[in-house]
């Protein structure tokens, strides 16, 4: 198995066949994380740089574990330690990194398109670990893997994504990946948090929480960021929780085998009630475990081929 691409900048343009290859590889690598000695020599001698311009705990940890379990050497740079704060441009920083011959750069950035800019200027492989409000392809892939594990398939499923679609890179990658794999995506949220002409992303828009939940095989809740309050995108967390939060009463009307997902970190009591987050419907922690597997798969497929 291999991928005919150097970078993973987004799920846009990634074929169903490529996604299947990544998910299958992730399945086969999952077992490594269950071993007492969680390490294989696959990427020995390879260097992976984790270049995080924006704070991240779980994504970075997940990527670092993935690289380490494959025996790659890893270096971490964050905005506070990098020269970004000293006025260096992104391209200069990247060229300096490139001069140290990394095999792959994992990049998180607060601005949409930043990894695309990097990819135009340096030759090494780049994985987008989240760029602004654009894409978060590894999150999209781990969500696909989680759904496939629980439901046995991706084709023909109905997935509802609820919350702040506008500012969510998780939603964009999720929508693209799900559409590619044959699922039908519905979105719901306050109109102020739906991007303009959201249907152009290939989704339908539900008119109510009940409508969004009714037919869904999978309900994906998105984190509501409290800073959106200061932009007056909704009036209060109270009303948000009441109208757009997922509670037990919604699940009572849902399909019996409905699955609830959340990319984390969750705001308990805002977009998701504690009972829902901790209940049997929830696969939130499976998502986290699958994150490591998907990232291992990508590292292997992008830079591990000749080393094998």
């Amino acid at each position, binding site marked *: 198995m291999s991928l005919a691409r150097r970078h993973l900048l987004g799920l846009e343009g990634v074929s169903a066949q490529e996604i299947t290859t990544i998910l299958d590889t992730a399945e086969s690598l999952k077992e490594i994380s269950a071993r007492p000695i969680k390490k294989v020599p696959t990427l020995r001698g390879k260097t992976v740089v984790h270049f995080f311009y924006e704070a991240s705990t779980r994504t970075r940890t997940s990527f670092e574990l993935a690289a380490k379990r494959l025996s790659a050497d890893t270096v971490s740079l964050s905005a506070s330690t990098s020269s970004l704060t000293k006025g260096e441009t992104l391209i200069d920083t990247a060229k300096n990194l490139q001069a140290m011959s990394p095999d792959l750069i994992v990049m998180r950035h607060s601005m*949409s*398109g*930043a990894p695309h*800019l990097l990819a135009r200027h340096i030759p090494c492989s780049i994985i987008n670990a989240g760029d*602004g409000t654009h*894409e978060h392809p590894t999150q999209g892939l781990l969500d696909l893997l989680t759904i496939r594990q629980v439901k046995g398939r991706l084709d023909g499923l109905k997935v509802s994504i609820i919350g702040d679609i506008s500012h969510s890179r998780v939603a*964009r990658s999720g929508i693209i990946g799900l559409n590619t794999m044959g699922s039908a995506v519905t979105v719901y949220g306050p109109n102020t948090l739906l*991007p*303009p*002409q959201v249907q152009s992303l290939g989704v339908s828009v539900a008119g109510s929480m009940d409508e969004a939940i009714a037919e869904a095989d999978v309900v994906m809740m998105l984190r509501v960021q409290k800073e959106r309050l200061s932009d007056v995108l909704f009036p209060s967390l109270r009303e948000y929780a009441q109208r757009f939060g997922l509670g037990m009463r919604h699940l009572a009307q849902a399909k019996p085998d409905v699955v609830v997902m959340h990319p984390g970190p969750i705001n308990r009591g805002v977009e998701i009630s504690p009972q829902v987050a901790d209940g049997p419907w929830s696969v939130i922690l499976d998502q986290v475990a699958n994150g490591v597997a998907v990232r291992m798969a990508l590292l292997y497929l992008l830079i591990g081929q000749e080393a094998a």
Partner: protein
Amino acid sequence: MSPRGDILLKGGRLLCPATGLDQTGDLLISRGRIAALGGKLAAEGALAIPCAGLTVAPGLIDLHVHLREPGHEYKETIVSGTAAAAAGGFTAVCSMPNTKPVNDCRAVTEMILERAAKEGSARVYPVGAITPGLLGQGLTEMAELAEAGCVAVTDDGRPVADARLLRRAMEYATGFGLPVICHSEEGSLSAGGVMHEGPTATRLGLAGIPAEAEVIAIERDLALAGLTGARVHIAHVSCAGSVRAIARAKQAGLRVSAETAPHYLTLCDQDVGEYDTHCKMNPPLRSAADREAVRRALAEGVLDAVATDHAPHSVLEKELEFDQAAFGVVGLETALGVMLELVAEGVLTLPQVVQLLSAAPAALLGLPGGRLAKGGPADVTVIATDSPWVVEPGKFRSLSANTPFAGRSLPGRAAVTICGGRITHRLDQEGS
């Protein structure tokens, strides 16, 4: 550049929309003026330039140029900007006031004019600021700006938010014959946006600027034009809603005019592609439907002129994250070629293009030129309408290369540019 000897343009298509002239013949330039035109002319000692198959038009005039000097000389200077103008067929440019210091007083206006006269390759008509420092408060000394040589006032790029202040500005400027140029943008609606709001922005995860941010502001500015009776000119119109508003204002008899730019006629938001900062400008590239509406408005005369909004930026402002990159593109050296593309497509006729780039801008701001007339200034552009070339930003005379048209094949360009009887550009002698 040649000294100001006599020049004989032989056998070209003399095309002057302002006078209705359209016939093959010679044109003789002597002592900086058009000495004779039409038929076969002979002139002892004149430099003869064969123009058979070429179009001899009035020198092109650009209403909207950022020359960047004083203050941002690494992006453009009066010398490089007017050289770019000449290479693009322009003999005159109106320079926007957002320099550093801002052109908000006589000293800056005079400095620009002095440098342009001494070292420039095109006439420069400064446009003064409406508010000192473009800060949106108070009024500049417009009487003095007019006296010093400003041909209009604008707070381009930093539109006057306060409607009462803009009303005062329109009333006051009118007293000194100064048109008011409006960059119409409702800042509270466009704030934070980096490209046109639509499916492409949604796909790319970029914050959008709705077309309504422009439409609302144009409606306000047109209403104030009605209230004050001022001569108001709307800059860089980019969308269908703006076109409708302007058409209504003209039907109502207001003294308003409007321009658009070549990029709004030929590109759209989809061209941003994968975060191409050379397609980032303000107003942004709009939808394909808006582009059609702007094209139609130009063909039908709702829009009066084409101006480039030439906005040079260096790689320092453009090789950045899309959110961080500066708004603006260069246009002087591609405008004519891009407009000829519209002729080739049948959107406009060649006389229309010449009108939109010469007679119209001259009339709108009361500038000299814009016509081929015996005794008039010898500002002449010889156009090779059928001479395809590929845009290579590295060959620009502009100091900046931030063009969205790099690599595009254009059907024609300026073969010779003559400003005040002086050859400022000659394609067949480039590189020699």
